[in-house]
């Protein structure tokens, strides 16, 4: 890092604005909270007084020339990127900008099927064509892994005209593909390398963690600062590599970005970047050791399997993010989603998500040892009280999709609504996914198979929160005519 990372230009500008006691005759209309005492009472005076609009001393997110520009340059420096954009529409908006930048209508992007819905959503907007590389699947754990390098090579050979390759770095479960090799492959075939790093902010600051996209030489990365980075929900970074022209990326971002960027979000990004740049190494050392401790204790309970770097296989699990506390629950005889529900309903413990066979507890800088003890204690109790035979449990989570149309074609096609049971063989025109993790079971343009119908029914029966379909209960699906 070359710049003075102790600085936080947006924060400093906001402080100065407060010191100057400027009288506001601009929006927002709550006028530093005075106009909305109920909200001010709820959120706090300080918070409301910082909710201000773009003005000369505070710069403008759509066209930054002063403090936002400085803050973005500091962030780029901290992340080792060519440029860093402050994003206020969630990592979804950063992913959208990557996809819209990389491929226009009819152009291909090579990507794993276990992407977040925001990636395919962006393709509905742009009309780009997905070329799926089926991720490897771990049969025991029932989770999708990374892309193997040879599968990516095959996809490139079959689609030499593709414009970009996208990887998850890491997946929700903490699994990384060989991003360095895949980046080199992409570049040697004139393709852009994009990374969804929604779960990888800490790779840029911790030690002994998997390689970050920017260090691997990737061209763009969407980084959820609000996940492991500590900023406010919905604030995020879009990083670009040295060979990407930030001015053209900005034009793409401005297609869909608000013109009233929130200074709460922006200052949270600015301060969190400062914090990670200065103290990140120490912070993530602590997070790793908390996660490690939790894994040891959970594995000692029996039946639960809290996995870590031992599952690395050099290819589809090229690396593992040891800050992630992913726990397989199959041997307890409970689906992950069931453990997730029991933890919340009976023990007042909220974890990140549960799927068919796993749960993920998000460990961060905000955790204390005694909170970890509660989680471990509750898991031990759940096993004692609920353990049952595991036969009849559906574990394999990945169903290879049959893509018949581009997401955009299917989404905008003439469609009709049919009952789930009668949808076999039809082409789906909408998404179906469990949320979280938000990885589509079906996405627009894919043929509905019996396996998929069975899987959706099982997920519902186990209590998964199914989203994406127009029918709120996912009893019916929209299909093309």
């Amino acid at each position: 890092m070359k710049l003075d990372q102790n600085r936080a230009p947006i924060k400093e500008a906001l402080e100065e604005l407060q010191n100057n006691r400027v009288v506001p005759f601009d929006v927002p209309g709550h006028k530093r909270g005075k106009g909305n005492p109920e909200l001010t009472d709820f959120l706090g005076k300080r918070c409301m007084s910082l909710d201000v609009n773009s003005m000369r001393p505070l710069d403008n997110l759509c066209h930054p020339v002063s403090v936002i520009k400085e803050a973005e340059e500091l962030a780029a420096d901290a992340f080792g990127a060519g440029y860093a954009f402050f994003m206020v529409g969630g990592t979804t908006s950063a992913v959208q900008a990557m996809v819209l930048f990389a491929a226009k209508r009819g152009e291909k992007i090579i990507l794993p099927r276990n992407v977040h819905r925001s990636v395919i959503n962006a393709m509905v907007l742009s009309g780009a064509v997905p070329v799926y590389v089926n991720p490897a699947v771990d049969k025991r754990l029932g989770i999708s892994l990374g892309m193997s390098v040879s599968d990516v090579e095959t996809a490139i050979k079959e689609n030499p005209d593709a414009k970009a390759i996208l990887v998850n770095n890491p997946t929700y479960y903490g699994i990384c593909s060989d991003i360095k090799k895949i980046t080199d492959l992409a570049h040697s075939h004139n393709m852009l390398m994009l990374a969804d790093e929604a779960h990888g902010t800490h790779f840029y600051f911790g030690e002994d963690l998997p390689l970050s996209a920017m260090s691997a030489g990737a061209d763009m990365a969407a980084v959820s600062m609000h996940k492991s980075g500590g900023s406010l929900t919905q604030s995020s970074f879009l990083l670009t590599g040295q060979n990407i022209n930030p001015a053209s990326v900005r034009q793409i971002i401005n297609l869909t970005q608000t013109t009233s960027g929130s200074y709460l979000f922006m200052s949270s990004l600015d301060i969190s970047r400062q914090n990670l740049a200065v103290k990140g190494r120490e912070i993530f050392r602590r997070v790793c050791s908390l996660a490690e401790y939790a894994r040891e204790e959970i594995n000692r309970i029996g039946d639960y399997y809290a996995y870590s770097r031992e599952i690395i296989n050099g290819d589809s699990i090229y690396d593992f993010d040891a800050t992630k506390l992913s726990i397989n629950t199959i041997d307890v005889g409970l689906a992950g989603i069931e453990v997730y529900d029991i933890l919340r309903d009976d023990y007042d413990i909220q974890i990140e998500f549960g799927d068919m066979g796993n749960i993920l507890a998000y460990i961060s800088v905000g955790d204390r040892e005694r909170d970890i003890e509660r989680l471990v204690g509750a898991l031990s109790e759940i096993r004692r009280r609920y353990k049952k035979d595991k036969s009849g449990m559906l574990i394999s989570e990945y169903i290879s999709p049959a893509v018949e149309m581009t997401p955009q074609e299917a989404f905008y096609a003439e469609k009709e609504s049919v009952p789930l049971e009668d949808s076999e063989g039809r082409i789906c025109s909408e998404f179906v996914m469990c949320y979280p993790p938000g990885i589509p079971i079906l996405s627009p343009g894919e043929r509905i198979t019996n396996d998929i119908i069975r899987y959706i029914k099982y997920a519902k029966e186990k209590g998964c929160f199914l989203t994406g379909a127009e029918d709120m209960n996912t009893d019916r699906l929209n299909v093309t005519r």
Partner: protein
Amino acid sequence: MDLWFSEFHAKGVKLSIKITKQLCSVQSDFQQIDVFDSEEFGKFLTLDGYMMLTERDEFIYHEMITHVPMAVNPDIKKVLVIGAGDGGAVRELARYKTIEKIDLVEIDEKVVEVCKEYLPDIACCFDDPRLTVYYQDGLKFVRRCENEYDLIIVDSTDPFGPGEGLFTKEFYGNCCKALTKDGIMVNQCESPFYQEDRVAMQRAHKRIVESFPISKVYQAHIPTYPSGHWLFGFASKLFHPIKDYDGKRWQELGISTRYYNPQLHIGAFALPNYVQELLENVEGIV
């Protein structure tokens, strides 16, 4: 010198005690520990500014948290005490010659150190050969025990600090697992009077009801605790605190007490109507 210790008992209520001297003030890894001296209450210990005990009224708390379960089952041999770094509960337990083993689990070693130095009349039994002290998280300790103790005493702080893990369902469930088939768990259960304490009391009771077949509540009068009206939980796998109680048998042990006696034992379980109602309100919801 006009020096006062004050503690809020509710948003608009506080208890103040005139201090003659501050004896000790240390910040441990877990909390702020202070010992003061006063005319009215003698020496007293506070953690993070909350009153833990005073020399003047600690006997009430410590007698009630130990003699009630011991009198219900005088055959108790192995006891686990969680929290209680002040040593008061251990002092009472040590008077039962029939107890073979006492394990004390306290998260904060500093509390024991401070009490040994400044409150030696309370922390007087740390040398008892039956006692083993473990400095660790209570939840973690109990998680690893199975069918091991006849009695678990949960002498915790309030549920808004290092003690919060000791008010959780996972903790009570793990205690149940750690107890023998006729085991008893007693816990300090906050006060029914002020809103914040009341909510904590109800939550704790609800979770204990979910974890034990028998779950009753008894009371004592403790002047320096918020409202002075304090509750304890009596949870058990087998013994009913009244039906299985033999006051005579306890009296024959010849243990002299200043607060506890067999008539009071029965009376302590007779709760005011409003308290009964608060408990019933959460008993149905499982």
